[in-house]
């Protein structure tokens, strides 16, 4: 192969590596993305540099060019149009395209391999690449549909059994083929495997809870990485191998890290189950105290230091902009308003950061949990808006609770707390929250957006 091509792939590999490295630090993440993207452009360009030593029919070239052009434009448009809250869906969709690409590549190469006399190792690589690609593709589509609310969880026993059976056939069919019991051409076997893998991808994701999708997407992404690496072996292409393995390995670790941040085990996530604690679902009657909008507004108007802890409910109610208004209003009255952001508040990591950034809230008022957790007592008033699990003291004091061990925002240590939610529903983890019954805690029932609006109205009058 051409030396320049090889050097280009080397550069691409190094920039994938550097890109990933930078992307994992909050300060340099943006540069990291740029580095990785540049590496990708280099990799693509030097692939075309191969044309200097190889003649390719112009029709092929035209198709390639058009496909790349359309893909690039399409990706750009989709990425620009999507709403911030729909990010995970879109990532999932893009992952499906990557998996799809790997699958189709495998199918075409399988056809070629059928014609030529390619050796065993190559055939195995092709089959593995095809299977992983197909699983990632169909799995990601289902993950996308779940996040978009188009497909419901399905924990039907048939689904589970079906997926296990298919898993078995992944091993069985190729083995039978290779020892010669299945007398079909390799091509056909490849098609069958691709089909089975597509179905498996669907069945694999179906039982998993919708809110666990970020974890699943990360896992599927890692599988796409493996498919890429396998294809890289087929072509002896170092950039593909390295890029694929980086993503594969990083993806698996990222999946585990995500689970840990939510204090869940990957196996439980994949089984669509929640850790069952010994806590009876609605164990004790809580002595909850309700409060009213006007009372809350009054308290806010007297407070000097206020903390707002946002959670999933705020995202659902789309109340982020009102949060910003409330902050401005209170600051005009010389109060200090901090937002305390729990890393897994909401339904994707960093959800709340994105939400509040959308509402143009100043970064100096966004506090991380660890920054303020020791000084919660300094706040005169803490407003919890649509958050539940992330402020549940059971995570600290009840070893039997499924969320035990998850770091929480220590709202229970503050002087006065008002929790805004619609009713007594539980949070994502499905556990009761002792905070609601505590002396320093009052509940303000109602949709977060409505309540916020009313508080703001009242405050303007005071």
């Amino acid at each position: 192969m051409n030396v320049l091509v090889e050097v280009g792939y080397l550069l691409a590999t190094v920039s994938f590596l550097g890109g990933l490295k930078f992307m994992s630090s909050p300060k340099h993440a943006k540069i990291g993305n740029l580095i990785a993207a540049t590496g990708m452009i280099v990799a693509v360009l030097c692939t075309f540099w191969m044309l200097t030593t190889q003649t390719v029919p112009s029709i092929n070239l035209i198709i390639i060019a058009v496909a790349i052009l359309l893909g690039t434009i399409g990706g750009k448009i989709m990425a620009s149009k999507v709403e911030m809250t729909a990010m995970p869906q879109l990532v999932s969709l893009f992952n499906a395209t990557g998996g799809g690409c790997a699958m189709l590549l495998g199918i075409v190469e399988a056809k070629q391999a059928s014609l030529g006399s390619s050796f065993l190792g190559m055939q195995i690589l092709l089959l593995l690449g095809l299977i992983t690609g197909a699983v990632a593709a169909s799995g990601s589509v289902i993950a996308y549909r779940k996040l978009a609310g188009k497909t419901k969880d399905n924990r039907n026993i048939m689904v589970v059994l079906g997926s296990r059976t298919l898993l078995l056939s992944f091993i069985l069919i190729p083995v039978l083929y290779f020892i010669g019991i299945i007398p079909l051409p390799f091509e056909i076997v490849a098609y069958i495997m691709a089909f089975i893998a597509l179905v498996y991808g669907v069945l694999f994701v179906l039982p998993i809870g919708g809110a666990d999708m970020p974890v699943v997407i990360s896992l599927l992404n890692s599988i796409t990485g493996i498919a890429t690496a396998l294809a890289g072996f087929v072509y002896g292409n170092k950039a593909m191998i390295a890029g694929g393995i980086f993503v594969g390995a990083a993806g698996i670790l990222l999946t585990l890290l995500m689970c840990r941040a939510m204090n869940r085990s990957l196996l439980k996530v994949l089984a669509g189950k929640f850790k069952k604690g010994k806590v009876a679902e609605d164990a004790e009657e809580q002595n909850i105290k309700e409060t009213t909008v006007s009372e809350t507004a009054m308290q806010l108007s007297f407070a000097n230091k206020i903390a707002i802890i946002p959670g999933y409910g705020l995202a659902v109610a789309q109340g982020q902009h009102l949060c910003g208004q409330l902050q401005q209003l209170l600051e005009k009255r010389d109060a200090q308003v901090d937002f305390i952001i729990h890393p897994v508040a909401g339904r994707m990591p960093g959800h709340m950061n994105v939400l509040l950034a959308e509402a143009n809230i100043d970064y100096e008022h966004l506090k991380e949990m660890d920054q303020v957790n020791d000084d919660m007592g300094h706040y005169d008033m803490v407003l919890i808006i649509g958050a539940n699990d992330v402020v549940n003291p059971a995570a600290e004091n009840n070893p039997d609770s499924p969320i035990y061990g998850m770091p929480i925002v220590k709202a229970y240590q503050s002087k006065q707390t008002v929790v805004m939610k619609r009713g007594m529903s539980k949070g994502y983890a499905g556990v009761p929250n002792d905070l609601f019954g505590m002396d320093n805690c009052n509940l303000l029932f109602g949709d977060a957006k409505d309540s916020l609006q009313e508080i703001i109205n009242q405050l303007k009058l005071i």
Partner: protein
Amino acid sequence: MEFIQNNLDIIYFVIFCIFIGIEVIANVPAILHTPLMSGANAISGVIMVGAVIMMFQVPPTNYITLTVGGIAVFLGALNISGGFFVTGRMLKMFNTKK
């Protein structure tokens, strides 16, 4: 054994890649999980390079294969472009404090 002998370089390569992949993101804060996932997704789009190489070899008269290959390239390009753009957009939201 012979296999190891012939592929020693690639074995080192794979082991190092795995180690680096894991090591590089071992300490990532939770808040970056979503953009990192998305960035990794974009990088795995390098599969498109494979699709292009494959297309170089397809006989120009084999229309079915050309079409399938073209779709593969298109999907790959979509993954790359969309992946990096969406990651960039997300990261723009994550501005860090000065």
